[in-house]
Every structure is written in structure tokens, then in C-alpha cells.
């Protein structure tokens, strides 16, 4: 019982800032009280702590939408919690969570495509704005500006990549995952992952070359 309380408390403390997140927590709360046993809740609490930010980062880089990424992260954790009992541990937890995140993202784009009267990327941040976040204050202003331009070029190419290529590229370059992990997350073979990655890198190279 103690663990259950700590799970709810941690979630509330971490998520109370956003009303969307609050809604998800309130959905989660009765479920916890009714079904979860204390050990499971404690385990999942630790996992949510450990991987939430990484999931958020991947979804943010995929969508470039801060709010959407947050909603999707919450949805991902909710789905993971619901299916936590069926997780057999065949793959790592991160791979499993990434797979859920990728599926949520796919569903989102599919739904958006059906809603053709809406713009596909309503809340997405502009490419230039996304490339503003460049650490490394030790570099000179000129070098920083040049690096920022290059990063903006990479963003431009990334947004033009196919869904699979983008996913593979971001998992490899941003999340620094192994090819086998990417293959497990995406449900593709390792060879296909390599192919998608090499094509994505080739396009990035071309994109950088054309402006560089």
C-alpha cells in the first residue's frame, strides 16, 4: 500500500503541471487502486522514472511538437501500464516502450492523414527554431552560427524523410541505439534497418552538401 501511494504521489508531483497530463493521471489513479498489486506499481514507477524523458525526447524529435510529444509520452506510459502484466521480458524495457511509442506515433499520423482538412503539423516548431537549441558556449559565435545552420539543414532533411527512415535515423543518431535494438523496436529486420539508415544518411549528406 505504501508503494502504491508513492507511485500516485510521484506521478502527481511530476505531472501536475499540465492539464493533459493531469487527465491521464486521473485515468491512471482508479486503475491503480483497483488492479495493481504493490510490487508491480513500484516496478512500473521506477521504469516510468527512468525512461520517460527518453521517450519524450524521441517523440519530440519525431513530431517537433512540445505538447503533442508530452501527450504521446503519457499515452505511451498509460498503454505500457495497461499491458505491463503481459510484458514477458523478451526484449529490454526500453525497446518495448519505444515500440509502443512508435505505434502511437504511427496511429497519430494515420489519423491526421484521414483528417485532411487539418494541417498535418499544427503545433510543430519551425525547423530554424528547433535548431536554436545548440549547447557549447565555448565555441566562437561564428562557429556556433555555422553549426546552427548545419543543424537546421539536418532538420530540413529529417522532416522530408519517410516515416521509417526518420524513425531509424532518430533512434540511431539521437538516441544512439544499436541496430539490433532499433530492429526490435521497429519490428524490421536488421538488414532493413541498415538500408533505411544508410539511405537517410545519404540524404542528409546530400542536404548538407547542397548548402555547404
Amino acid at each position, binding site marked *: 500500500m505504501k508503494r502504491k501511494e508513492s507511485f500516485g504521489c510521484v506521478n502527481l508531483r511530476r505531472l*501536475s*503541471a*499540465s*492539464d493533459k497530463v*493531469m487527465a491521464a493521471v486521473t485515468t491512471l489513479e482508479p486503475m491503480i487502486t483497483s488492479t495493481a498489486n504493490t510490487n508491480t506499481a513500484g516496478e512500473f514507477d521506477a521504469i516510468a522514472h527512468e525512461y520517460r*524523458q527518453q521517450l*519524450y*525526447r524521441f517523440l*519530440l*524529435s519525431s513530431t517537433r511538437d*512540445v505538447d503533442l*510529444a508530452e501527450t504521446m509520452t503519457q499515452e505511451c506510459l498509460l498503454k505500457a501500464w495497461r499491458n505491463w502484466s503481459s510484458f514477458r521480458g523478451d526484449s529490454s524495457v526500453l525497446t518495448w516502450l519505444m515500440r509502443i511509442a512508435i505505434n502511437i506515433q504511427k496511429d497519430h499520423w494515420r489519423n491526421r492523414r484521414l483528417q485532411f482538412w487539418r494541417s498535418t503539423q499544427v503545433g510543430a516548431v519551425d525547423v530554424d527554431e*528547433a*535548431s*536554436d*537549441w*545548440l*549547447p*557549447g558556449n565555448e565555441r566562437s559565435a561564428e562557429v556556433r552560427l555555422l*553549426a546552427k545552420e*548545419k*543543424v537546421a*539543414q*539536418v*532538420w530540413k532533411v529529417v522532416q522530408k524523410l519517410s516515416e521509417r527512415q526518420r524513425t531509424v535515423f532518430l533512434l*540511431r*543518431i*539521437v538516441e*544512439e541505439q544499436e*541496430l539490433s535494438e532499433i530492429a526490435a523496436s521497429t519490428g524490421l529486420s536488421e*538488414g*532493413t534497418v*541498415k*538500408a533505411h*539508415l*544508410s*539511405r537517410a*544518411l545519404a540524404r*542528409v*549528406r546530400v542536404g*548538407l552538401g547542397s548548402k555547404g
Partner: protein
Amino acid sequence: MKDKAEELKQAMQSGGAENPLDPDDEMRLVLDDFRMSVHAWSEAAYHRPRKISAAEHRVWRRTLAWALGCVLAVGVLLTGIYPLRQKSQPEQTARVAVVQAPEEVAKPAVQTPVQAPVQVAVNTQEDESWMTKVDSDVSRQVPAAMEPLAQLLNENESE
């Protein structure tokens, strides 16, 4: 579709031959910058302060939307009802007339009959011609002493 499959196959083969994760130094630097920028952005967005006041706005908006919706619904209903009423008014008048007609037919037995204007005009004309004829007949029956004067009068009339 076939071309795409072949292209993918070739890429897989080339991917297997040379390491696709081995970009040149310059590109590696750019990709490192890209990774760092995503990490920094994500970090900032993840820990950003959030507002909770959105709910109040939502209540206001919902109330306003309901009010506008009600006004619109009433407007639509009235717009629909008004022409119907306008249309049904002559029908109602006709229906009342039909109901009142038998009563009016029954009344002439007691009251004087109401003649049609045409009939009245015809009757008046007949009366006038008849009266003229009577006048002329009466005027012809004058005493013998007055006969020459009557002839003169007739001549004047004929002229």
C-alpha cells in the same frame, strides 16, 4: 513499386558491404551537434514551467459556445417557423370562410337577398328604358288642341 523494392535491396546490400554508421568526420560533427541540440531542446521542454489556467478559459469558451449555439438554434427555428405561419394564414382564412359560408347561405331566408352588382345594373337599365317608354306613351296622349305642338316637339327631338 518494383523499382523501389530493388532500390531497397541494393541499399541493403550496400549497407551490408560498407558500414552505414561510419559517416565522415565533418558529417559526424554535424550529427553530434544535431544530437546535442535535440537533447538540449528536449531537456528544456521537459522541465519547462506549465500553466494550469487553461481550464478557466475552457469554461468561458464552452459557455460562450453554448450561448451562441442556443441563439443560432432559436434563430434557425424562427426562420423556419415564420414562413410556415405566413403560408398557413391564408389557408386558415379560407377554412374560416368555408365554415361561415353555410351560415351566410341560411341567412337570406330572413334577410333581403343581396344582389350581384351586375344584376342590379341590368335591372336599373331596364327600369329606365321602361320609364322612358311610359313617358313617351304618356306624352303622346295629349289633347287634340295640343297635337301640333307635340308634333313640333317630336320633330325637334328627331333633329
